[in-house]
């Protein structure tokens, strides 16, 4: 029986998987980013054009056609799209990583069967490539902020903190889904549906105040809610994020990541028999 290379009782073991193999993770993430648009003429420019086009679509559809407004006072047709985009990027980051996770092990059969490879680092490189796209999208958002909101809020400096609180949750999801994905082949479809549901059931398309007081607490069972609200706060409204919410979130997310990492390490010895 192979035992894990980590002390699984240690809550920081998930992060050791990153620090021990940091160079490898960076290398894999870079390869993943470069590979996605391989063969197209615009190439890497697509990672920038894609979020820009999505933003244009949402501005046009919700701002101009539907005349959706985040709050009743504003007459600015672009504000809604910017708020939407700030939350949408969080959902895209999560759903991209979760979607990749379901086939992460199956796609890397060679690493499972032929060589001694730190499989657990695949999670961090998936996150790395997702983070790259999140950064590009956020830059697109900040680049248009001066036109829409008049300025770039200084609270942007807290955005890395918000993302840092989110990472353990995403990493944990990727480990859990990667392990389960080996055994349950239709997990990919299920993840697609769940991440769509998470987006609509979080205050991304509508403000939380739209939900009656009695039911609003239910939104917070959605793992995207706290992070989406925080990133709208720091990127658009220029408000400090709710640090109490973020701290509670970070604690729960870390516990989840710890559990998911231990689960992955425990189940990985069975992978070679299945793939």
């Amino acid at each position, binding site marked *: 029986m192979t035992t894990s290379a980590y002390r699984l009782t240690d809550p920081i073991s998930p992060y050791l998987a990153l620090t021990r193999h940091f160079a490898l993770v960076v290398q894999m993430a870079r390869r993943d980013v470069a590979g996605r*648009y*391989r*063969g*197209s*003429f*615009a190439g890497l420019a*697509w990672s920038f*054009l*894609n979020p820009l*086009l*999505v933003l244009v*679509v949402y501005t*046009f*559809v919700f701002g101009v*056609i*539907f*005349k959706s407004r985040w709050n009743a006072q504003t007459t600015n047709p672009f504000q809604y799209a910017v708020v939407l985009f700030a939350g949408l990027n969080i959902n895209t980051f999560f759903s991209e990583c979760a979607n990749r996770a379901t086939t992460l092990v199956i796609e890397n059969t060679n690493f499972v069967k032929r060589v001694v490879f730190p499989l657990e680092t695949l999670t961090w490189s998936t996150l790395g490539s997702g983070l790259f796209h999140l950064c590009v999208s956020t830059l697109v958002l900040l680049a248009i902020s001066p036109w829409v909101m008049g300025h770039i809020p200084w609270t942007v400096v807290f955005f890395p903190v918000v993302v840092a609180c989110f990472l353990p949750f995403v990493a944990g999801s990727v480990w859990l889904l990667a392990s389960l994905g080996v055994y*349950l*082949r*239709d997990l990919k*479809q299920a993840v*697609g*549906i769940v991440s*769509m*549901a998470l987006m*609509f*059931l979080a205050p991304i*398309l*509508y403000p939380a105040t739209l939900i009656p007081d009695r039911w609003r607490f239910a939104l917070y069972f959605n793992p995207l809610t706290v992070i989406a609200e925080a990133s709208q706060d720091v990127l658009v409204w220029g408000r400090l994020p709710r640090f109490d919410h973020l701290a509670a979130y970070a604690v729960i997310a870390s516990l989840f990541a710890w559990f998911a990492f231990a689960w992955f390490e425990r189940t990985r010895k069975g992978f070679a028999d299945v793939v």
Partner: protein
Amino acid sequence: MKLMLIAVWHYRHFILTSIRNDLRTRFARSKLGATWAILQPLTQGAIYALVLGQILGSRLPDTNNKYAYVVYLLGGLLGWTLFAELITRCLTIFVDNASLLKKMVFPRICLPLIVSGSCLLNNLFLLAATLFIFMLVGNYPTWMWLWLPVLIAITLLFGLALGLILGVLNVFVRDVAQVTNVVMQLWFWLTPIVYAISILPGHFAPVLRLNPMYAICSSYQQVLLWGHLPHLKTLGAIVVLSLVLLTVGMLLFRRASPDMVDVL
């Protein structure tokens, strides 16, 4: 053209077995099998109904059915799902089957036919599930429902024609796939599926009526919810448009076919 049809006829068993295999692998590999083809659009419908139903549903004209919005939504999604699945699968049809194209000699025109067959089958499952839900919410069949096969055929023709062009272009310019993905998002929102066209500000409605998917999806809604005739004139125009697109697609395909394997 005639040679192509003869070739397709000779390979009809290949096409049919491929469709069957496509379905079978999906049943064999996963626990829920082809039900995912139904579950995905149905959950989409459920979420839209839950989130948007309160806001947009109350503004549907001429109905007294409590579940009118659900019927409206599922009716439109039925047409849209078939179209979107055709486009997304045709888009990468040659790229995805690169190894098959390189190794085997067979008329390449079989590939789009296999995809159409398997999309159609998926859509029929979804249709069955949708009609079952309609019964549950008390939207009973009318004679107008007999128009459904015609609507499905038109959607299939339009999706296939456009998909074929995009699929051929995507072999040579991979950027087509990126643009199409964004355009499909825009297109979904510009088609009155989750909302009624009457909620739009005045000057947008006439522009939106030029959208072929508007005519198709609203015909589904007319037939299923209101029991009205579909927009026959517009649908006729779409058939003509699809045939033109299909001809363009076939010409492109014939021109590109010899070079395809080298580029893949």
